[in-house]
């Protein structure tokens, strides 16, 4: 069974979001990393980039496919997990911890209401 921590928010496109005051940390879910299998390449957004909610801003690739990672919220990218580029296996082994992708400033708190709860996300992946 995929892990779905209660305290996080989720998207239909399998990103997770951790809200910490004005900062949101974003990564891909345990379910997503399992579907992808071993990650072989990752492209992250640069610091300072302005991204709209729903915009593709990272690419994660396995042997088989390239998948876009969408920004669940609008705002500026304030940090990218460059250490992840040295050890992509962290995306597979620690998706909610060391496998985080990027952090952004939250520009519109209302957008948080559009995110899914752990319970709702669980419904989606279980069909």
């Amino acid at each position, binding site marked *: 069974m995929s892990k779905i921590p209660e305290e996080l928010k989720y998207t239909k496109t399998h990103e997770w979001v951790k809200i910490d005051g004005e900062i949101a940390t974003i990564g891909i879910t345990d379910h997503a990393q399992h*579907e992808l*299998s*071993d990650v*072989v*390449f990752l*492209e992250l957004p640069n610091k300072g980039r302005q991204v709209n909610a729903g915009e593709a801003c990272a*690419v994660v*690739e*396995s*042997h*088989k*496919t*390239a998948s876009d990672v969408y920004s669940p919220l609008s705002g500026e990218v304030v940090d990218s997990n460059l250490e992840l580029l040295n050890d992509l296996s962290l995306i597979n082994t620690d998706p909610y911890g060391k496998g985080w992708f990027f952090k952004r400033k939250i520009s519109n708190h209302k957008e948080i209401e559009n995110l899914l709860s752990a319970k709702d996300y669980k419904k989606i992946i279980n069909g």
Partner: protein
Amino acid sequence: MEINPKQLKRTPLYQKHIELGAKLVDFAGWEMPVQYTTLLDEHLAVRSNVGIFDISHMGQLIVSGKESMQFLNYALTNDVSKLSPGEAQYSLMCNKKGGVIDDLYVYCLKKNRYLIIVNASRTETDISHLFQVLEVFGKDKDVHIDLTQNSAAVAIQGKNAVKIIELLLNQPSIDGAPVKSPAELKKNQIAAFLSDKDHVWVSRTGYTGEDGFELFATSLIIIDLWDKIFEIGKQFGIKPAGLGARDTLRLEACYPLYGHELDENSTPLEAGLGFFVAFDKGEFIGRDVLFKQKTEGVNKRCIAFKMLQKSPPPRQGYPIWNCAVETNPVGIVTSGTHSPTFNIGIGMGYVRTEVSAVGTELEIDIRGNRYKAEIVKKPFYKKQ
């Protein structure tokens, strides 16, 4: 309730895949395992020990009758008359323009009886094409084309495959190549062996670049053998392997895949498969165009390339550029991945003949960024 909205076909080993926790995908209308654990794990198991694949989705045709050899020589590019009972060859089926309808394996089971293994995605097209060819060849001729029913197949691939087959069916053959045991089969040989009460055809062929065997039999026999192979294979590090690993393994070995390197707009000569076109055997479908290409040359060629810098993995459809021709791409990627064996991006693709020499530097356009690559000699991987 079990939901199968697309009415996907299932192989007789479907239940085994479920029990093994496989992730299943729609492949050419079949619900097939793409991976059981991880692609990397399965790929490396085949390269270092042994893996087992369900290949029951592939089409198994039987072409028989007194004029079956002449018919196949007319329908296919390779020379079937060179096959004795118990021998097999790779071949292609072309349209009149020399475009590839399918690539396949022809096994001569006995005189006037051939087993033909075709791609799952092409089985229906192949059968209707073969019947059309038969109209031209002569409906009155003694040729029968049948799609085998209730059949299944598995591939055991990797250097330990021979150790498993030795313990699985340690007995002399009863048909096909006369051997004392299946381990004695040479590459491209096939023979029948008794398994319980029914027989199983075993060939020394595969699609991974490793030594290995393919087993063809009825569903019941294959289900039974699947369990036995696992039991015996444990000591040799066997793992079930899915379509994901099958694709990266074949790509490292530079085996073409229909829908990627091969389609009706590419010829065997353009694909670099001229070795499997027998011009000296007489008339066959596509010969005129292929002979012209052989004498005058081709405009595009299927090449293998490796990335020279860190980049996203190349994928089918990415444009290929060359610095000598700046205005337009010189070709297109047909297959690509991150190679599990070499840990770099590799691929195959078609490029214009003038930039197709080994050593030529290329650039692969990946989402608008160009990354350096180099044409290399095929295959990337060759077993020791």
